[in-house]
């Protein structure tokens, strides 16, 4: 239980927040932050632990979102089932992209660019395909109720995304303490050395991208159920690819806590930006770009790295 203790404590505290927070604005802020942290936790599994940087995690987010929406709206399937199917399809899309790219030996910036291309192709398809609502997008009819995965009380949706994030973080923590995690990190550090030690590099990468895709798809499913409207730019747009990788990098790449800390800080910054600069187009991206440069230059291990440096007696991790 030791490795999960802090995680459980923090999750319990986060779960209690809606009981003390009155403001809807604050709660929505947290809800969106948790969703971004969830998408970032998916990215982090592949990019942070596995060293395979994706610029196209929107492909998973969008797949999770559209699967949930399309199955409900076009096929009348239950929302929970549709949501689960979105996660499964996200994992499957991950495995398929991994099969095509990793088997071809794509690494580094080549892998990053190809993932970006996959996300863009998905965006273009979704913007013309009648099934996904093409240019008009797709609207999930409002039917409040837990059975429909639509939460009326403002706290329920928050708890739902918190539970998803908690599961994803616990999964990351579990992987850290297992053979798969050791092999995944070994692949990041040096593929040839890993092979020589008996690591099936392709298999490890495929597992990582499938898990990564599934987790980020769950964030997309949550998005669909929360905002009840999707179009290609929202679901498959580059914004979420950027947010997913930024939360992990700013928070602390390859750490369990990184995406959550990064998401909170980035969301706070972007809210601040909106207050100061109004809705000037592109301001958010400029702000994120500046943050990224500062982090890469001065705190390459992100917020988690800063915290660890401030407390030299590092807490033993399980």
């Amino acid at each position, binding site marked *: 239980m030791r490795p999960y203790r802090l995680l459980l404590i923090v999750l319990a505290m986060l779960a209690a927040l809606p009981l003390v927070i009155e403001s809807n604005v604050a709660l929505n802020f947290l809800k969106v932050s948790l969703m971004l942290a969830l998408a970032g936790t998916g990215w982090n599994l592949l990019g942070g632990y596995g060293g395979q940087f994706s610029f196209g995690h929107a492909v998973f987010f969008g797949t999770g979102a559209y699967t949930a929406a399309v199955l409900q709206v076009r096929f009348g399937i239950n929302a929970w089932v549709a949501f689960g199917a979105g996660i499964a399809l996200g994992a499957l899309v991950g495995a398929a992209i991994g099969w095509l790219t990793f088997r071809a030996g794509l690494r580094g910036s080549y892998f990053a660019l190809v993932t970006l291309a996959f996300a863009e192709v998905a965006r273009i398809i979704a913007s013309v395909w009648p099934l996904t609502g093409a240019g008009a997008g797709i609207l999930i009819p409002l039917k409040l109720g837990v059975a429909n995965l639509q939460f009326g009380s403002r706290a329920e949706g928050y708890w739902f995304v918190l539970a998803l994030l908690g599961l994803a973080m616990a999964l990351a923590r579990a992987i850290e303490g297992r053979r798969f995690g050791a092999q995944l990190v070994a692949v990041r550090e040096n593929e040839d050395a890993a*092979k020589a030690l008996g690591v*099936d590099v392709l298999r490890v990468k495929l597992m990582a991208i499938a898990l990564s895709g599934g987790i980020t798809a769950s964030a997309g499913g949550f998005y669909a159920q929360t905002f009840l409207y999707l179009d290609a730019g929202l679901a498959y747009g580059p914004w979420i690819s950027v947010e997913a990788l930024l939360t992990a990098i700013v928070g602390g790449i390859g750490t369990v806590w990184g995406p959550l800390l990064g998401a909170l800080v980035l969301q706070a910054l972007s809210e601040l930006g909106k207050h100061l600069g109004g809705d000037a187009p592109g301001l958010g991206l400029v702000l994120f770009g500046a943050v990224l440069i500062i982090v890469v230059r001065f705190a390459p291990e992100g917020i988690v790295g800063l915290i660890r440096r401030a407390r030299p007696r590092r807490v033993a991790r399980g």
Partner: protein
Amino acid sequence: MAELIAEAMGVTVRFGGLVAVNDASVPVTEGRIVGLIGPNGAGKTTLFATIAGFQKPNAGRIRFRGKDITALAPHRRAALGIARTFQIVQPFAGLSVRENIAVGAHLRHAGRAEALAAADAVADRVGLSALLNLPAASLTVAGRKRLELARALATEPQLLLLDEVLAGLNPSEVRDVIPVIRAIRDGGVTVLMIEHVMQAVMALADEIHVLSEGRIIARGSPDAVARDPAVVEAYLGHGAAARLQGNAHA
């Protein structure tokens, strides 16, 4: 007569027009320390890479325990019991020494605790115990060479391929590592080692194969190989053997 654990049979590797390994055959007898020596660029590392599965040969076969493994991926060969070290060391730089070794140990131990315990035990054998918690990136050359050795050992191999694990060490460090390698052999692991430190190969190897310009030009006991005129020529240049003979007689 002891059995062959592994055999490179007529291996040829070409890089474009360059023939790095030319129809080389190296039988490796189980339980021995077999030395592979030769001048720079002779093709030793390339032959190693072929045995470990990192380099596809243009011709020839690799056999391990009687099975043809020429088409097998490196990780599958590691699982069969072939471990290699890298001449240019390849540490997992961001990980601690213990975590580095544990990656190797995970090949035989699924559980994290067992793999870490196995890593500690291996570190003890190669003299890395004091450095277990350090980042691998902070190790000296000697430390990194030991780490290569430790990781490979942690996979519990039957055949260990050592590519110049003594290169870059000072004489006293070399003296420290020699008994470690001998103990590995005495523990039942067959060792095939590339080495330029002659004093060490001569002291360690039960037999030596000499590679020059991709071809095996001599093999035998360390003494016999050292006296072989073809070997002297390969190292010192054409006519060297005759000149040395002449000097000896003069």
